[in-house]
Each structure stands twice: as C-alpha cells, then as structure tokens.
C-alpha cells in the first residue's frame, strides 16, 4: 500500500458533530432549499397583507387573511431559524445515541482515497464517492457514499500545518465538491 499523504487522529465532541450535522442538513437534508420555501411563504404573506390593506372591512376576509398572514410569518421563521436549530438538536441526539461517534479515529489520507479506522470500524472512501466537501473555521465535512454519509473532521485535532495541508489537498483533489463557508473578516485598524 502506498504511503499516506497525511495521518492524524480525530475525536469528535458533541458540539462539533452537531454543527457538522446542521451543515449537512442544510446542504442535503430536510433544511435543503429552505430559502425557496421561506420566500414562497413570504410572498404569500405579502399578498395577504396587500389584500388586508386594499380591501374594505369584510367580516369573512379579514380573519382569513389575518390567519394566513400569521401562518406565513410562522413558516418563514420555521424555515429560517427553527429548522436549522432542530437539525442541530437532532445531531446532538444522534451523537448521544451512538457509541462510535465519540471514539477516536485514525485517518490515513491517500491520493485517491482516505481510510478512517479504529478498534471497531474501518472505512475506505474514494474521493469520487464524495459529493460535498465543506470547510468551516473549525471543521471539515465530507458528505457522500452510500453509508456513513457524513464524516466530520475537527480542526482542533490537527496541527496548523496539517490543517493547511489537508485544506489545500481537498481543494486540489475535489475541485467541484469543495467549498469554503463564508465568514466575516474583521477589518484591520
């Protein structure tokens, strides 16, 4: 077997897995496409508001429009704030229910695939199976495959140099799948 490019150990904490699961859910879970769903309810709500302002007092239309408007406001909040939070809580529940997620894994990163293994599990995954590689300030997420679809790597477990090597490698190896999440940079005074 060829020598790995990088070898490191990784042990996840509950918060890291939950954050990873939240991003996974936003990308390809229940929360995917939430902006479109929220905007549909937003436009429906706006239409109701317009009807309320335009119509003269009508005992039938007023309560119906008000109820629909309130439902639309709730659905917008649900898709934008509540659903991602629910995904994070679900991630926490999954972590608590699993004995394997809290175990320490050793990763061997090769040119075409990586192997993650510990006492109980060994997984070899080719980069062609991965359809999303997301890098955040604290995590690497590898999404894909037919089983164990979400693999989370905490940057905390890597040294600075290893982190840069891995980031550069993923960016080079998975050109179309790789994306770096945006974050605000503070202006230097």
């Amino acid at each position, binding site marked *: 077997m060829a020598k790995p490019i990088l070898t490191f150990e990784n042990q996840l904490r509950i918060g890291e897995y939950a954050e990873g699961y939240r991003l996974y859910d936003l990308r390809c879970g229940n929360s995917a496409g939430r902006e479109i769903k929220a905007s549909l309810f937003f436009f429906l709500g706006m239409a109701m508001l317009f009807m309320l302002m335009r119509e003269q007092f009508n005992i039938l239309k007023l309560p119906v429009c008000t109820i629909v408007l309130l439902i639309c406001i709730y659905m917008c909040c649900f898709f934008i704030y509540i659903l991602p939070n629910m995904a994070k809580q*679900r991630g926490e529940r*999954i972590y608590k229910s699993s*004995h*394997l997620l809290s175990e320490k894994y050793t990763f061997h990163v090769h040119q075409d695939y990586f192997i993650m293994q510990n006492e*109980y*599990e060994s*997984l070899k995954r080719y980069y062609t199976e991965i359809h999303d590689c997301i890098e955040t300030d604290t995590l690497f997420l590898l999404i894909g495959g037919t*089983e164990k679809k979400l693999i989370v790597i905490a940057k905390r477990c890597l040294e600075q140099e290893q982190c840069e090597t891995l980031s550069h490698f993923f960016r080079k190896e998975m050109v179309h799948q790789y994306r770096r999440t945006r974050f605000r940079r503070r202006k230097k005074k």
Partner: protein
Amino acid sequence: MIENMQVSFLPTESDYVMMCLERQKYLTPKENRVLFPVAGIIDIVCGTLGMILRGESVFEMICWLLLIAAGLLILSYYDVIKPFFIAGSAASYYRYHQKDINSKTICINAESITVSDELHRISVPREYVYKIYQAKKTLFIFLDQEEFIYIPGRVIEEMPSLNK
C-alpha cells in the same frame, strides 16, 4: 432472545426500495398515521355536504370539488403518495449508485455484530447497537438514531426474533 446468524448478500434494487419504504414507515410518527386519514375523511365529508347543500354556482362547485380532492390527497398521503415518491427516488438512487453498492457479509452472535464489505468493516459489541427493528421484509440494525445496517428479508429464511 439472541440467535446466531451469518448472511451474505448483494442488495438488489427491490431490496433497496423495500428498505426505504419500511424505514419511512418506521420513522413516521404513529399519530400522523391516524390523524391524516381522519383529517382527510372530514375534508371529504365537508366537501360533499357543501357540494350538495351549497353548490349553487359553477365557481362554488369547483371550490367544493377542490376541497374533496384535497381530502383525498390527505387521506392517501402516507399510504399511496409518499410511498410512491419514496419508491421512485430510491430506485433512481440505486441505479445511479449501483457501482458503489457492494455485497455485504453480516455475522450476528451473542457478543458482537460484524458487518463487512469491500470498503467498510464494522465489528461492535452487542451493547453498542442502539436498536434492532424487525419490519415485514427487512431487518434493521441501528447503530445510532440515523446510521443503520439492513438485511433484506429474502436472505433470511426464517426471520429470527432478535431483541437487544
């Protein structure tokens, strides 16, 4: 009761589709399976009564018919509509990922559960299994709330009753 068994199989398209359908059934809350048909029937009854008693113009008739149609959709949501879409998406997923689906060997004994295929191997003690769920045509072994291993019913001659 714990029984020993060893199975080896390559999941077929029908196995995969059946697994997705039974998993969905497992995930659906029981209240929803009761509430949806009740709501659908109420909707249909209201629509029918409205059409008979208040269906005076064509526009009103269309509104009542739409209400009945909505009732039918709600009534058949969990039994017809959702399974139809899940089966369709599962079949297309299987066809697209066919090259990534490998044959599996699963060995269950009193102490541990071992699952191995070409790329993935898990060997965990029985205490690490979150839940074993036996559906009509599939046996699910949950390692946590989401991750699971499944055995199609056709590969087990007599489905053993496995309890955690």
